[in-house]
């Protein structure tokens, strides 16, 4: 198993957001689905230690997450947040920032290509990108670190159909070309069907299903 959740619980502001989650996430493409407010994004943030659970434990490759050095873990398990949050500057400077943090050489054109962006995007000012382009730049920035796992939080929620299709095509391409496992949060079961083999379904912070796509989203 890539990740293993053992009785994971988390409270915020006196409310239980995640309640006794026990589930496994294998290598490959996983989707976390459920209605908004179900705790999907919160769970995703726990997987690279942007937050820690209040109860229970999460294992990554059979070792407790807390045993990993958080900064090194986040370079290996990258997270693309729901809303684009690029640093001021060009797309290239953002990619370089990420590559430098990970100590990786930056292969600009190749990395942009994996995110469905053509090489000319490198010199574009991030303030002049559309939301869809920013979202793809965020994906490229995460890829510049050569992560082994990518956590994607509703990567297409703010986009129109055309932009969504471009991102989905880029993600499918990633799966074929790079050996990166993905955990995708989506409120849309159809998107899970298109992009995932394994599904976790959350409802009101509780696990409502976990297993192969065909079983959980039958």
């Amino acid at each position: 198993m890539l990740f293993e959740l053992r009785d994971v619980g988390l409270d915020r502001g006196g409310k239980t957001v995640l309640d006794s989650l026990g589930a496994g996430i294998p290598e490959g493409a996983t989707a976390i689905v459920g209605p908004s407010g179900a705790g999907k994004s919160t769970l995703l943030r726990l997987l690279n230690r942007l937050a820690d659970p209040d109860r229970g434990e999460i294992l990554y490759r059979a070792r407790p997450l807390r045993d990993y050095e958080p900064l090194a873990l986040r370079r290996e398990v990258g997270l693309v947040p729901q809303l684009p949050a690029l640093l001021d500057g060009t797309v290239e400077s953002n990619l370089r920032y990420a590559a430098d943090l990970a100590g990786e050489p930056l292969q600009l054109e190749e990395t942009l290509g994996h995110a469905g962006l053509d090489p000319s995007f490198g010199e574009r000012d991030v303030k002049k990108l559309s939301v869809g382009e920013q979202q793809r730049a965020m994906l490229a920035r995460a890829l510049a670190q050569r992560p082994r796992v990518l956590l994607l939080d509703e990567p297409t929620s703010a986009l129109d159909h055309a932009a969504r299709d471009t991102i989905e095509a880029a993600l499918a391409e990633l799966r074929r070309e790079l050996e990166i496992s993905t955990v995708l949060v989506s409120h849309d079961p159809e998107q899970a069907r298109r992009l995932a083999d394994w599904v976790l379904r959350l409802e009101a912070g509780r696990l409502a299903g976990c297993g192969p796509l065909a079983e959980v989203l039958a």
Partner: protein
Amino acid sequence: MSTSIHIAVWQVAASLALVALAAAISFWQKADLERDIVVATGRSIVQLTLVGYAIKLIFEADTIWLVLALLAVMVLFGAITARHRAAKVPDSFGPLLIALALAGGTTLGLVVALGIFEPTPRYLVPVGGMVIGNAMTASAVALNRLGDEMGDARARIEASLALGATAREAAAPTVRRSLRSGMITLVDSTKTTGLIFFPGTMVGMLLAGASPTDAVRLQLILLYTLLGSVSISALTATLLAYRNFFTLAAQLRELESGPAR
């Protein structure tokens, strides 16, 4: 620089006519500040008179220890006051206290070590008061900005953390802007000094009968001293305080749900 003039009580009392004018304007224009003006006037009389007596005692006792005790009290009250302006910064008191103590200690130490002022109460008390007062304003402004920016830039900071940036790397742009806003007011007023306004020390010196040359020189020394103190305090306060927004595992703390511990 030893000049002295005498101000009689009736002269002070006569200046209250201008307070009455301010209150009248407020009443006439319904600015609703009359009560505040009265309170402010009352407090200024009481506070300054008490401080006047305290300074008189300290001057007469002429020991460095009393001076240091007075400066320590100023640092303490400065940190308490600044904390209210930095309400969005968790646990801001410690950083502010250290920032004010360091700014006061370093700048006063330097002006004495460089032989600019003698280490006597006559110099250390008024200069110390100005240094600590300005350091307080600068660090309060810087932390106020830090609190706002850490809220506004939360998504961007967390996105940087998600790439494996350290808390320091993720917060660097925010810390930079906060430091800048803490220092900019004094830098700007130093640029326009003498053109748009006459700074207080110079006005005081001129009124007290000093030569304009002496007044200008003392004013310059004080402006430069204040620049030093303001930069030390704003830098120290922001560098210590930004850490309080993060956990040891480089996670942004949840602050909406009350004081997270």
